[in-house]
């Protein structure tokens, strides 16, 4: 080492003691690191199993069969998109509150909406209502480019950071009024409206490609009753009301 003097070299034995004292701490640190990693791996495995179970019991069993959708639902760590207090319930068959009067949808609804819009790699999909960013991450996993708009600035900021941290760089998040859509990236192959309004904004219909699909859940925050699919065919736009329950159609009690 340049500048090391003989005097310094002579002093070396005197520093051995502190180093010995330091050794147990270093070992403890390594042990902690090792067990910490092992715990993290174990935790990841637990969540992976929960996810697999969720796909098997809540999604496949209700008729979702699109391979890309199922793969996405198996991959995206839903527990990282819910508030800390809801992590134990992240893979339950229900929506969960995320603050600001918003919810992260029931896993089945997310899967159903994804399957309905038939995402294909290289397509562009606009999402209105980013919320936690979970639906956007699922769509991104299918290989599409996702543009998502959230009107509540705090939710937009959190979702943007979360998506970036989890590696969903293809998802572009904008904080703003979803009414106007995102003209810059239009037209879109599909539009997913996660926060339904009592009207369908005309600019969204304009930004939807001819032959494109728009899906909107209809219901209260904790009970989606139907999904509305809007299909654009030239000047004539039609709607289709779909039932997000496996026992459809609704029948009278026997």
């Amino acid at each position: 080492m340049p500048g090391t003097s003989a005097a310094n070299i002579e002093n070396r034995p005197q520093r051995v003691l502190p180093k010995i004292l330091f050794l147990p701490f270093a070992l403890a640190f390594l042990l902690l690191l090792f067990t910490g990693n092992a715990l993290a791996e174990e935790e990841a495995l637990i969540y992976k199993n929960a996810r697999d179970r969720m796909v098997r019991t809540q999604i496949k069993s209700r008729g979702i069969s699109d391979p890309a959708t199922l793969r996405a639902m198996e991959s995206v760590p839903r527990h990282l998109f819910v508030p800390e207090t809801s992590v134990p319930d992240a893979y339950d068959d229900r929506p969960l509150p995320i603050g600001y009067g918003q919810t992260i949808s029931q896993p089945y609804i997310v899967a159903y909406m994804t399957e309905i819009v038939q995402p294909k790699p290289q397509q562009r999909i606009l999402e209105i209502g980013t919320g936690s960013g979970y639906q956007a991450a699922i769509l991104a996993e299918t290989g599409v480019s996702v543009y998502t708009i959230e009107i509540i600035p705090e939710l937009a900021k959190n979702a943007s950071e979360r998506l970036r941290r989890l590696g969903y760089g293809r998802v572009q998040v904008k904080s703003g009024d979803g009414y106007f859509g995102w003209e810059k990236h239009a037209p879109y192959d599909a539009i997913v409206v996660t926060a339904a309004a009592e009207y369908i904004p005309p600019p969204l219909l304009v930004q939807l490609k001819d032959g494109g699909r728009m899906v909107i859940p209809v219901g209260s925050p904790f009970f989606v009753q139907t999904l509305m699919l809007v299909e654009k065919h030239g000047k004539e736009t039609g709607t289709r009301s779909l039932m997000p329950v496996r026992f459809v159609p609704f029948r009278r009690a026997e």
Partner: protein
Amino acid sequence: MNQTSAAALNRLHLSVALLSIAIIAFQLVLIHVLSITQWHYFAYMVISVALLGFGAAGTLIALARGWFLERSSFLLPLLMFGSAAAMATVVGITQAVFGGFDSLLLFVDPSQVWRLLLANLLFSTPFFLGALAIGLIFVQHVDQIGTFYFANLLGSGLGGIVAIIILGLLSPQQLPAVTAVFSLAAGFLILPNRRLRWLIPAAFLACALTAFNIVRPVYLSISEYKDLQRTLNLPDAGIVAQRNSPYGLVQVVSAPALRHAPGISLTYSREIPVREAVFSNGNWFGAISEWSAANTEHLLDYTTGALPYAMATPNDVLVLRAGTGMDVSHALTRGARRIVAVEPHSTVLDLLDEQYSKTMGGLFRHPAVTVVPLEPRTYLATDSSHYDLIILPMVGVFGGTAGLFALQEQNTFTREALSEMWRHLTPDGILCASAWLDYPARNPLRLAATMVETLAEAGIDNPAAHLAAVRSWGTITFCVKRSPFTPVEIRNVREFCRQMLFDPVLLPDLKPGEREHYNLLEDRSIFTYMDQILSPARQELYKTYDFRLQPATDNRPFFSQFLRWQSLPHLIRLFGERAVPFIEMGYFIVIITFFQTAAAALVLIILPLFRLGWRSGNRLWTLMYFSGLGVGFMLVEIVLIHCFVLYLGHPVYAAAAVICAMLIFSGIGSYTSSCMPIHEATPYRAAGLVALMLLLYAFLLPPILQHTITFSMGWKIIFTMVLLALPSFAMGFPFPLGLQLLARRSEADVPWAWGINGCLSVLSTALATIIAVEAGFAAVFLLASAAYVIAALAEFWT
């Protein structure tokens, strides 16, 4: 007590009255505050449980009567100061609970249950302390119970008036502390001459807390799922106007992203305008329309609600529950020459007139528009004109309300209401009603059923010739025409549907496949059910459908209540147990309230028996007599409020008139009873007389009200007072007479009896709602009479 001077007794009576004012006013204020921060039915649940404080007070006095009586001169003012301090602070303290609590999450997040229990406990504190003071006075002066009960009832009646006055004057967060002032005054009135060393600091503390909470009230934390809070979450949103009123807190919100276009057609290509919106108690009330006489087109032209205008150009239009006037401006734009807008929420009308008249283009001051601030049914009963078009308010909201308003009385949508409207139509007049589509179908089917039953009652053999309905992606509009639809009108309906991408659902000559040209349904069963409703087989559908579809009636005016308990297992299988409460949360909450209060009441009633003994005395007699009185009095109060809403035309005034008149006249009855000699049989005879009177009222009151509803308001108020005075006066007798009789037999049982009465009164509020839903208000009236019969029959168990 013989040594107590007359002046001290008078002060004590006044103190009871003041404390009663405070308790009743606080109760009403708390309902108001919780209705704003949460929902009405949640407020109802909290209050019901909190009122058990009365029962708990009775139980505690029964358990430690001697201890309390020995210290009464010191304890009474202390309890009143304590009650005042609790009234002033409890809302602020529970903000810590409610800050993270949401009644909508009750069925989602198990931790909410503990927060709810804590909230219930906190809210019951002021009632418990106040009731303890009143109960102690009753026990101490049971020989003069007639006059003290009079003071209690008179104060309670005045408390209702005080609440209504302050609701209109002060902001909601100040109200609880203002009611505490009456409790403070009650305490100061009876300050003893000794042991002031403890009482003065307590009084000072209570005064300081009250003053602080009036001057610096806490911020009310509103549920994040309420319409108002969701709107305020929009960027740059803010409250731009606010009015306090007994109808509710009215607020106007402005936000650059706030738009309103209910179920607008997919063909609408222009920008949906930004509107300011009105909220009442945090719930959506309506958007403020910017109307101009120069407009030739209206936003509602692009909704299914434009169906009647596609068929004709009506001259005389009646808009019921006109809200912020969107349907009124639509009618004007479509060329109507005379429009009557009926809207009972006079605070909103005043606000719109004073602050938004210019924005609305002077809509409500237009020469063609007459605004009537009355309940629609009351207006219809007093009006003799005929209309080309009658428009009902839209049913439901987009996506549903999770059934939070399931038990709201909707007198505008009953079979009797539609028949009344039918009589107000010109020979070619149209009655029009729209609903948001729901799944499983409920609102549209009940609306169709109500219209078909109205036609049947009017003697129309072929309802299909008089009924048209069109459907968009989200809404459905029904039109009933007094004469059969003409071929030209039918052609116009089809053209309207083609232009707007709507589908006809009901038309006299509907062709197969026409119902789903633009808007497809995966589950088409709604069409089958619609057809069944039009056929004589509809009774079969009513019986077998998972939800109640029979039209609402004046006896059961719950249009939005659909849940049938026997269908619950099927619905759980279908939607899952977690989702089912969101189908009809309002009713679920009432059921939970009932069981919660029943369990608590049972404990509170049984507990004193461990001290008083199970067998000694006349336990069964006491239980029967005072349970009967508690149930009977409360049921009568609830059913009379229902009866007088239509009669007086204002729900708030009806509630105020009934509560105040009943309590004050009962108080007079109680006072009169104190001048009577008491024999063993007197209390039972009094209860029997009340039962008989109520039985007569159950049958006579509805026709009397119906025949006098057209009278002027002055006469109606006189009638109301006379009609309420008779049974109320009689109802003032049994309780004090019974207590006096009990005191003769076993004075130690007096607080237990008082507690039973309190517990059962609270339980009856939930019970009344359940019976009204399941069997109708007439059954509630009969049950009230039966409760007094039970009290009268208690004689045989002595």
